[in-house]
């Protein structure tokens, strides 16, 4: 059992749900338990794996892998398109449980969070507290979490990842560096394929070797901007857990089954995204000032273009019109087959509204959106459709992917 630390030493939990999307599917449909399950889309398509059950992972399937490859590796797997709305519901429940223990909670996506529990000593041992959280999560949501406990964020994250699935690892103050030393560098958050390769050419394969590199050599090879990485490798990370910040942006994107140059299809997809994002903003009582269009062409060139307005909006049509202007500009510069399209809204403002002279038109659209929201709340998103998205219906026969 850990000694209760001095106040100057922080205690940070990193809690991460195991195979989140898949586990939600298994909770909702127990017949899927113990089976290879892959969430992401239809295997004939070109999307990527969003989540894979541990049974599927045994065959080498991992997230971000093209679905077609996952199908080859694990043909017997159950492929699901996923239901984002359900995942958000589960995530809310899960975060609410974590919030019961400390207000110092920083979510990182739907399924993971950092908690700064420093000062929560009255719960007894950290290990006991973590166990209690894990049990509650499983009892109340059916999900399984892995926990890493450490005096800083990066070590807590590595620990939660290392213990998966259903893990619980505690790294005591002073032992951070030793804990990391033997692990391969790729276990370090921030080291991807590219940096991993650079390090390998230098003979650096473990986090310990990275930590021991002379500062000057590290700087000259990886640059001044990466100094933090070496600090992390030494188990040093002063970054605070930033208490429950609200999401800074919200986005939707899709990879097409086939590269397309069909403008009306691209428009229809953007309209669909605009309706989704608009509904989300209205539900949360927010307005967004910035709209960003993301396009990836068949040659993987990726373009992001944004437009910011002085006043925020949550109207489907305003978001859509703005997206259309960005699309026209982008394709005007370079028109070649499009592989992926995405739309993001950001720069949120509150519910205060700047009134406009031309509110009559905005009011009409507002009423229209509200009416559509009501129908969709009751009968589902597909129950009502705007003319712009007819193209999609024909293409997907009503089975529009959510994310």
């Amino acid at each position, binding site marked *: 059992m850990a000694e209760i630390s001095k106040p100057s030493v922080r205690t940070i939990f990193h809690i991460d749900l195991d195979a989140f999307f898949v586990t939600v599917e298994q909770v909702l449909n127990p017949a899927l338990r113990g089976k290879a399950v892959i969430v992401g889309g239809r295997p004939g398509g070109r999307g990527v794996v969003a989540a894979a059950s541990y049974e599927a992972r045994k065959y080498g399937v991992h997230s971000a892998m093209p679905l077609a490859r996952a199908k080859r590796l694990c043909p017997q797997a159950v492929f699901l398109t996923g239901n984002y709305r359900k995942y958000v519901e589960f995530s809310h429940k899960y975060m609410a449980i974590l919030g019961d223990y400390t207000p110092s909670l920083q979510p990182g996506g739907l399924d993971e969070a950092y908690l700064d529990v420093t000062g929560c000593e009255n719960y007894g041992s950290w290990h006991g507290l973590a166990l209690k959280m894990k049990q509650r999560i499983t009892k109340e949501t059916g999900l399984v979490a892995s926990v890493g406990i450490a005096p800083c964020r990066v070590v807590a994250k590595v620990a939660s990842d290392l213990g998966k699935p259903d893990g619980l690892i505690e790294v005591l103050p002073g032992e951070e560096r030793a804990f990391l030393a033997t692990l391969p560098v790729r276990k370090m958050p921030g080291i991807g394929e590219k940096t991993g390769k650079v390090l390998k050419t230098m003979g650096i394969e473990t986090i310990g070797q990275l930590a021991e590199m002379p500062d000057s050599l590290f700087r000259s090879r990886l640059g001044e901007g990466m100094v933090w990485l070496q600090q992390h490798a030494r188990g040093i990370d002063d970054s605070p857990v930033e208490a429950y910040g609200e999401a800074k942006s919200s986005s939707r994107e899709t990879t097409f089954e086939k590269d397309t140059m069909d403008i009306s299809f691209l428009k229809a997809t953007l309209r669909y995204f605009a309706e989704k994002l608009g509904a989300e903003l209205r539900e949360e009582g927010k307005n967004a000032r910035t709209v960003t269009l993301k396009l990836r062409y068949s040659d993987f060139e990726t373009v992001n273009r944004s437009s910011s307005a*002085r006043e925020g909006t949550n109207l489907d049509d305003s978001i859509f019109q703005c997206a259309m202007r960005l699309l026209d500009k982008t394709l005007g510069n370079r028109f070649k087959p499009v592989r992926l399209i995405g739309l993001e809204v950001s720069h949120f403002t509150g519910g*205060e509204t700047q*009134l406009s002279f031309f509110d009559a038109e905005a009011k009409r659209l507002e009423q229209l959106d509200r009416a559509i929201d009501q129908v969709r709340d009751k009968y589902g998103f597909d129950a009502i459709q705007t003319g712009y998205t007819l193209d999609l219906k024909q293409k997907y026969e009503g089975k529009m992917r959510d994310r």
Partner: protein
Amino acid sequence: MKVSCLQENLNKGLGIIGRAVASRTTLPITQNVLITTDQSQLKLAATNLEIAISCWIGAKIENEGSITIPARVLTEFVGSLPSDIISLNLKHHTLELKCGRYEARINGLDAADFPPIPQVGDDFSTKVKAEDLKLAISQVAFAAATEESRPVLTGVQTEFEGSKLTMAAADGFRLAVHRANLIEPVKEKVAMIIPAKAYHELNRLMGNEDQEIEITLNSQKSQVLFKLKGIEMVSQLIQGNFPNYSQLIPQTYGTKARIDVAEFLRAIKMAAIFARDGSGIARVIVTPGATVEAGKITISARADEIGDNIGEIDALVDGEAAKIAFNARYLADVLSVVKQAQVSLEVSTPSNPGVIRPVGTDNYDHVVMPMFVQW
């Protein structure tokens, strides 16, 4: 072409037309400057196809001719030369410049390929004092929209009728209307939408010189020409119908306050510090006193995580107590361009527009839509 001129004249001329040089373009020649001999002067011109600026500088012409030269190279080179006589000598498509012991050769493109600078006819013509036009632009153009969602709102509605010039701009959240006098009355009423950007450029070109500006329109009513002393600017007009703005100006009010501009602006700027993180909301509360003179106005702002502030200023208040919230920036913008010492603020309900007018003149109306907030 063989000419000579003073370095400072050429440098100044290039500076004047520089803002019309295209920065990003699909037509590379628009990144060039057109240099032409024009009677006994040297004419410099640039266009980005939205606006075109020409200016004339004194020069000694030995041989006539014209060429286009990349603006950046020419401007930077001429700007670095000492103040002396520059000789320009065109050999085929290469312009040779000599100044004291410095010389350069810059490759150009044929002047015939340069987009024609529109010739604006004299179907319509009038004159206005630079000083009056400058005031009108400074009080109106900033209220135009910068977003392109409604193109007509990025322009300034400009109306000529009798001996009156009326300019109006609105971005949907505020409206500015300024009335000025023409030197020469117009025969018939003419209205056009001039891009706010073009007006900003014109303001810069007019400088502080006391001069008369001639305004003419081409016969298709698609371009407007401003003729200054030694400078001409042509701008494309925005096509479309400007909203009927006069109906946006409230005719009645429940509360009218007369406020010192400097004090008001100070209080608004302070509120803006706290309002910055939110939606820029400044809450304005007008309180009448026992007499009109004893009125006061408080202006406050708050930001969830930072804190709040409140300021109180004296005002002459006529009417009932009122509260209304505005975007602090919109108020600061209008108060910064008023020349008079005092303004009147007219308001009615928290969701009806407020009107700001300078006290002592009736040539300016500024209408601001409020923000809807929880009090």
